[in-house]
């Protein structure tokens, strides 16, 4: 039995008021959250940001939604307050969900979902210990992310950033045969670190560019690699043989700083490193040295440590390094789908069902 109407009030400078009409469109009854009757009530879900509409639309009528209704990340102090007593938490990758936050939420918290495919900001172990499933948003952002990874690769390999700058600063002269030449994909060997959904989708998109060989490194062999085909390799072989090394894996305790000076030394001097996984995969000081000294040819990063990267970071001074502000899944289609899946994860869990996408 649902109450006729619910209004939730969030008392702060960022007030966000919701009015949810009942099925019967009867007159509006107003309750404050504190005076809610203990009769069956909607679960409370806290959303840590202004998010694409599809997720909020999904939550409507199924939950009492409170929200940090801002484009900017919620400060930790606010987060600790707002999670008190909620049943479900809809968070973003900028929110660190650890034991402290879980303690603040208290025993009511039954579901956490992040609007991202990466979940290194959530202490999944701690959540599971408390019987809280953690949801994430794989698949719905795979296409957009793979597309951006290829775009970034091409931008670096074809020296497009330098080209755009030459147009803007007037150094573009008449056509010259030897000017600003880059590396083509035709005949290249591509090495994918992490042949998951995204790594596989990237490899699929690169194939018609004439890639001669695809290698991949992963915790274990993947059967679907045969569809490309891609050859399972140990990391050293991948680094030594690849013309393009792509970071497409999840960030774990084991692979933090995987791409360091020793890794860059093993790479070809004509090779290019592209990272769209998590900034922590690369040791940025070592990367800077490798790029500056010509140990590798170029790099493209959509993810850094920290994010945002300070504007005076040395990597930004290099012609052969292209840095993007973590926009791999930045399409309205993708973001709306992520928002909806995140909401769905939470509601299903709160209804006692399995999440459509749970971190296992």
């Amino acid at each position: 039995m649902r109450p006729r109407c619910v209004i939730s009030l969030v008392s702060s400078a960022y007030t966000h008021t919701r009015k949810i009409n009942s099925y019967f469109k009867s007159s509006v009854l107003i309750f404050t959250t504190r005076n809610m009757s203990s009769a069956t009530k909607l679960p409370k879900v806290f959303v840590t940001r202004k998010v694409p509409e599809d997720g909020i639309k999904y939550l409507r009528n199924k939950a009492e939604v409170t929200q940090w209704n801002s484009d900017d990340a919620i400060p930790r102090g606010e987060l600790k307050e707002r999670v008190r007593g909620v049943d479900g938490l809809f968070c973003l990758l900028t929110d660190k969900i650890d034991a402290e936050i879980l303690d603040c939420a208290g025993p009511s918290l039954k579901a956490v979902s992040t609007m991202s495919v990466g979940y290194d900001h959530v202490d999944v172990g701690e959540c599971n210990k408390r019987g809280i499933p953690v949801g994430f948003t794989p698949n719905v952002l795979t296409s957009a992310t793979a597309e951006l990874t290829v775009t970034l690769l091409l931008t670096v390999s074809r020296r497009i950033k330098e080209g755009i700058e030459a147009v803007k600063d007037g150094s573009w002269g008449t056509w010259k045969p030897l000017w600003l030449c880059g590396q083509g994909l035709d005949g290249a060997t591509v090495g994918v670190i992490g042949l998951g959904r995204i790594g596989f989708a990237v490899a699929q998109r690169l194939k018609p560019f004439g890639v001669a060989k695809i290698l991949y490194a992963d915790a274990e062999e993947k059967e679907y690699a045969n569809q490309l085909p891609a050859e399972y390799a140990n990391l050293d072989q991948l680094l030594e043989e690849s013309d393009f090394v792509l970071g497409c894996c999840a960030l774990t305790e084991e692979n933090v700083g995987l791409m360091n000076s020793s890794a860059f030394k093993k790479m070809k001097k004509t090779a290019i490193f592209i990272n769209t996984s998590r900034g922590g995969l690369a040791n940025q000081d070592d990367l800077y040295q490798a790029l500056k000294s010509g140990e590798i040819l170029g790099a493209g990063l959509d993810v850094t440590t920290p994010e945002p990267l300070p504007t005076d970071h040395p990597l930004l001074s290099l012609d052969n390094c292209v840095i993007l502000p973590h926009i791999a899944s930045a399409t309205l289609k993708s973001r709306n789908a992520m928002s909806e899946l995140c909401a769905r994860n939470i509601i299903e869990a709160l209804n006692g069902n399995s999440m459509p996408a749970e971190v296992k």
Partner: protein
Amino acid sequence: MGIQRKVFVTRKVPQAGVELLEEAGCNVEFWDSDEAIPKEELIRGISGAHALFCMLTDTIDGEVLDAAGPNLQVVATMSVGYEHIDLEACRERDIRVCNTPNVSTDSVAELTVALLLLTARRLLEGVHAVKDGQWGKWKPMWLCGMELAQKTVGILGLGRIGFGVARRLKPFGVKTILYHDVCRVGYADDFGASFVEFDKLLIESDVICICCNLTPQTKHKFNKSAFKKMKRHAILVNSGRGGVIQHDDLLEALISGEIAAAGLDVTEPEPLPADHPLVCQPNCIVLPHMGSNTWDSRNSMSETTAKNILAVLDNQNAVGLVQ
């Protein structure tokens, strides 16, 4: 014992081609610079040449051909385009003209797709946001671009390059590929591309790629009336020749939002001045004609030009014979 054949090369070019000519016993003379050759130097250098190895920046007209004298048998350009060569003047003097088709197809198709993607995904805005501090903590609705999945792509000119573009776009989940050309082509069936009239291409496409050459028929084909027919969220990419687009009309269409964005690898003129309104326009990305900018491509172009020259001089079939 024949006379040593003189080849005049109008620029510093990749060694691959030069080596072929020297190995064949040619006397190779150069305008030994990265910069385009001035006309008076071209007229001086071509004198007595049996073959001219030129660039797309060199205007080869009657005056230049006359300066060469009676030895000249072939004008070979290190490019696919040859609108800088007066074909009629060459025909009158019984001089062959050659270009370098095929060898740069892959790199141009690759660059075209790169340009399409980086325009659709707003890469340039992203790079700037990082550099000038606009990048804050991750936001779900910031800097969202257009995903290619389920979109309609229209290609003007389904030649070697247009075909290469279509092939590369397939795994991105493009729903429909339309094309317009002077005639239907059989190989369009390979990926289910449909021939349409030009107006239908304009009306139905989410992305349009110009992959045709510049002819009197294609000159300024993209003008005010064409932009009006396009979708407001559409993106236009040009890696054919700048002259296919009326640039003032394009600027107006971009400012007024008649189309969403444009990516140009070729412009009219080249180079475009750094203060040209299109260079400053936020939803326009201009590249400095980088279509064939890979070492492999340029080496192959140099080699092919040399082979064209040797073929004509030896009375054989040249791979890139225009006429």
